[in-house]
């Protein structure tokens, strides 16, 4: 199943939740998943709903965090 993550296509398994996606990326990058915000199809997915929110074919996901800026 294909989704668009931060503008790039990504292949994921059916039934993958936002929580699983965030965890997977945090494992990959070795990063603390806290301080990350998720937007799905331009709707924010609150942390409280990461686990319950299952991704679907073609979902547009934005995964953002704070960086240095003026």
């Amino acid at each position, binding site marked *: 199943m294909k989704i668009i*993550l*931060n*503008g*790039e296509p990504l292949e994921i398994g059916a039934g993958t939740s936002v929580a699983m996606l965030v965890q997977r*990326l945090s494992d*990959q*990058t*070795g*990063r*603390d998943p806290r*301080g*990350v*915000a*998720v*937007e799905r199809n*331009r709707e*924010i997915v*609150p*942390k409280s709903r990461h686990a319950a929110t299952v991704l679907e074919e073609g979902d547009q996901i*934005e*995964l*953002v*965090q*704070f*960086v*240095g*800026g*003026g």
Partner: protein
Amino acid sequence: MSDNPSSDPLIIAGKAYTSRLIVGTGKYASYQQNADAARAAGAEIVTVALRRVNLTDKSQEILSDFVTPEEFTYLPNTAGCYTADDAVRTLRLAREAGGWNLVKLEVLADQKTLYPNMPETLKAAEALIKDGFEVMVYCSDDPVYARLLEEAGCCAIMPLGSLIGSGLGIMNPVNIRLIVEAARVPVIVDAGVGTASDAAIAMELGCDGVLMNTAIAAAKDPVRMARAMKHAVIAGREAYLAGRMPKKMYADPSSPLGGLI
């Protein structure tokens, strides 16, 4: 004051701050240098940007590992937003990421000047305030728009001294003065400061604070310049509160005229 700053706090959205200097977190050689500079500046608030998580480069440093939200109040900005919608969307994500309502709104008009687009800025401010945000707003030095933004409910008015990153200082002190005279919320000069005296001048005009990034980050020695800015903001604030001497067209001796041998 400097010796006992708690007696002259800066109050933004009901919260008191000892420091009147807000610093950015962009353009530093490293986040470590950034943190050292922020401490040297005595800053309590730092502006931060929101960007996509870098999924490929694992080595990349993380801001919050150096400039921690525990030590500094994060002030999310909307740098890079050119429409009200982009700015609102960005700050909603920032609130989700950090959990704070206090944000810095800027809606820019073009990449050459980074001048604020005031109609879009006002539109975004109204939407954000309706949505429960505490909005510190980057704006032009137009005193009429400053009033409109305050009436819309912004908790701090942040007019530019000069173009972002230009280091040209306070181009129009008269407008800044007009804004200060009329405002009932803090006025913080945002953008344009190039060196210490620029920050002092902003404070001498009666501004409640100064926000800067490039002046510190692009100095040859950013940590030292941060320390300079800390003193400059205190100096300007104290001078404003002390009430300066009048300017004179001719000389006026400092020593007694009587008793000369």
